[in-house]
């Protein structure tokens, strides 16, 4: 299922990107699986087609999908294994909750660590 919530601050294309990455991480999207056409997804979610195409380009640039002429976006065989990351994030979330940190503070810490 694809969801879009226009009332949140997160850009619409980024919401799509996050869902594909999560789907790949959780095994719901397998290597070789074709994503819906940008036109179909845009029509169903009442989005501009360029929003979907932008999401697919971001996913191509980070290697999550391949864009093939005539076949659309296909989940890349080299989809990164996020098992370790998922586990570490679960630990992080638990630790942050124990320390009484807000989601925002935790996100800031993660951003800082990633930029180091």
């Amino acid at each position, binding site marked *: 299922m694809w*969801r879009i919530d226009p009332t949140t601050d997160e850009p619409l294309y980024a919401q799509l990107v996050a869902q594909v990455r999560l789907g790949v991480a959780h095994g719901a999207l397998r290597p070789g699986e074709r994503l819906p056409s940008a036109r179909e997804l845009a029509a*169903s*979610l009442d989005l501009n087609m360029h929003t979907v195409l932008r999401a697919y380009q971001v996913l191509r640039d980070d290697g999550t999908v391949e864009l093939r002429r005539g076949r659309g976006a296909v989940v890349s065989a080299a989809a990164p294994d996020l098992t370790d990351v998922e586990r570490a994030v679960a630990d992080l979330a638990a630790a942050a909750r124990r320390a009484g940190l807000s989601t925002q503070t935790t996100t800031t810490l993660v951003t800082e660590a990633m930029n180091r």
Partner: protein
Amino acid sequence: MTPAPPPGSSRTAGTEAWRPRARRAMTWSSLAGLLFALAGAAVVWTWRDELPAQVASHWSGSTPDGFMAPTTLAVVGVVAAVGLCALFAAIGITQGAAAATRRITAAGCVWSGAFMATITVTTLAPQRGLVDAAQAELSGAALLATFLLPLVPAAIAAALVPGDPAMPATEAVPDDAPRAALRDGERAVWLRRATGGPGIAVGAAAVALTTLAAALTAEWTMLVVPAALAALFVTMFAFTVRVDAAGLTVRSAARWPGTHVPADEVVRASVTQVRPMRDYGGWGWRTARDGRVGVVLRSGEALLVERTGGRSFAVTVDGAADAAALLNAMADRSRRH
């Protein structure tokens, strides 16, 4: 005759509203089928002085082995057309709750008459002027015409049957139906490809066998049979299933055929287990008893949509529970306008 709905029961009235539409469609399509059959008989009548007293009516290979009087042949054609047409009309009148069912049965009525007329005319046309019907030949072109020509008026009849009018549900989706949790303003779509089952294997085998038969008999025009089968199987072995704010959309991977159930006509969506033979009488795009329509590609899990007007639609697809929950949530939303 339709029993009068009990007073105040809008639901019963809604579920019976299709009956006049079914009777209308079956009436004109039966008349059209009958006209075709009679036109075929009339053509034979105008040839009565040119035909042998006994015409060839059956061939084994290219040698005639069955003979009858031309008038008998014409009468048999009309009687067979009436019988076939009555069968289709009976199905349409008693089970035509969905427009798809009325389309198929109306096409069947017209096809019955056109087919019997064509086969009578193509059988007798080459026998005009013959003294001995044993010399009658059956050409491949005539066979081809017999298969293809009747499909044209049948397709036109199907297109002429009007679709179902919009029938928005008047009642809420039942409380016990599962619903996807959607925040206000959140948009969602569920997309999946429905495939599987014996369709590809059966299709490939049927195409191979009929091709082989055409090759062995060197009757090359009969290659139209595997070609038609291939076209049929291409449209029937994979479908895309989409649930979004508009409702449910199911479309063949070949783009046609397809159908749409608007969210406001969804009474309730659920998961069901389908046995293709027992529940729908086969695989592919099916219309079954009680006007149930289904895209049945394999046995097992299916999304079942109960629709207003006593109709229902099912499609065999993995993850049907998520699809049903989202469709119920979208049906809820459609009631809130």
